[in-house]
């Protein structure tokens, strides 16, 4: 069974609150995800996502606020088009755009955090492993 690993960039004003709330609910989730809090989804560089995939992380989720709910004048939506192209690139190379999850929600919709992460885990488990892209003899740090 493929045990995927997920990295989450969560916007402090919505996504992160959702994650906290899932904790308060004492949801039971696989321990194979890590959260990096960001001010806004716009701050997530596409390169950082590639960096994560190159390091053997199977999927990256970016959680931001809803349309109109962004604290930064809709900066969150600026990321949509960037990630759209990044998905294209990942699809081209067979890595799979599915490895990048972009989700917009509000702080009140925390009940969905659990569902999103679980679905993402399942989706990633069904993908072929990234191994061919990870240099087998590279430097081990």
């Amino acid at each position: 069974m493929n045990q995927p690993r997920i990295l989450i960039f969560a916007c402090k004003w919505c996504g992160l609150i959702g994650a906290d709330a899932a904790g308060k609910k004492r949801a039971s989730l696989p321990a194979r995800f890590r959260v990096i809090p960001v001010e806004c989804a716009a701050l997530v560089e596409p390169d950082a996502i590639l960096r994560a995939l190159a390091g053997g992380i199977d999927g990256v989720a970016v959680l931001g606020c809803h349309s109109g709910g962004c604290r930064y004048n809709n900066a969150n939506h600026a990321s949509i088009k960037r990630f759209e192209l990044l998905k294209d690139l990942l699809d081209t190379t067979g890595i799979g755009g599915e490895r990048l999850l972009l989700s917009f929600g509000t702080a009140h919709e925390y009940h969905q955090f659990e569902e999103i992460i679980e679905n993402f885990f399942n989706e990633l488990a069904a993908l072929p492993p990234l191994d061919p892209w990870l240099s087998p003899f590279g430097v081990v740090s």
Partner: protein
Amino acid sequence: MVVAVWSGKLIMLEKTKNIAKQILEEKKANGVLGLMKNQRDIVQPHVFKRLPELDALVLEPKWLLAKLSMSILRSSPEGYRLAVLCRGCDERALIELTKRNQIEKENLLTIGIACSQEQAAICLCDRPYPAKVDAGEIASGVDPFQDERVREFLIGNDKKRMEKWANVLKRCIKCYGCRNSCPICVCEPCKLEDDVWVQRGDVPAEMATFHLIRAFHLSDTCVACGACQEACPVNIPLLYLQLSMRKTLKEKYGYEAGLDPEKKSPILSDFLKEPETGREYPEWINSLREKDGH
């Protein structure tokens, strides 16, 4: 038939020379950047400044001069004007450089040359001519997605494609030729040189960062000239990485790099404002909004 092709090429060359001559005579520009073939038959880029020099002007081989124009203009005194002989891709690259403030458009003149049909086929070019064609017959564009080899790399299941790409990318000898030869890559330093993004001191270069970061950085600027691919010593089909991103930009946002000097790249603007207000979210966005049943 061969004679016809040759005479066509000769006419095109003569026409180009005349335009260049006129530019120099009328002092529209201080120099004309093009290719020169010297007495020893060696072709190299050259800034033509005097009329007699123009005898040595040639149009082949395909040689992108955009970045060279930029460095010449940068190091020239105020008010220096340069005319550049450019093919379609070269012109688009110049426009992209202008849009990115690397070239001041007042200082640049272009002499547009259309590529031959053969060249278009070699380059898989969908637009083998500049917007302003001064010499040459316009050849019809080639749809890269119809090409056999392209389809091998872009079509088929994920797993196979992943292996296919990994197999060519792991040949990389990290020469940076793709970046160096790209007419648009101007950053100094470049992210590929930073060990946060790409591990140093080892070959092959990290595949998922070096190549994909490079490809992604050019997503909205790539003019599909293929210079990266031509410079690659190990035959990695780098141009194919760009094709689907270019297609998305064209189909969803009506944007093609290097066409309109005034149009900003769509990836710089808010999704909600382009191309028109209220565009639906792409389906792949797992938006909580749609699921909100509470």
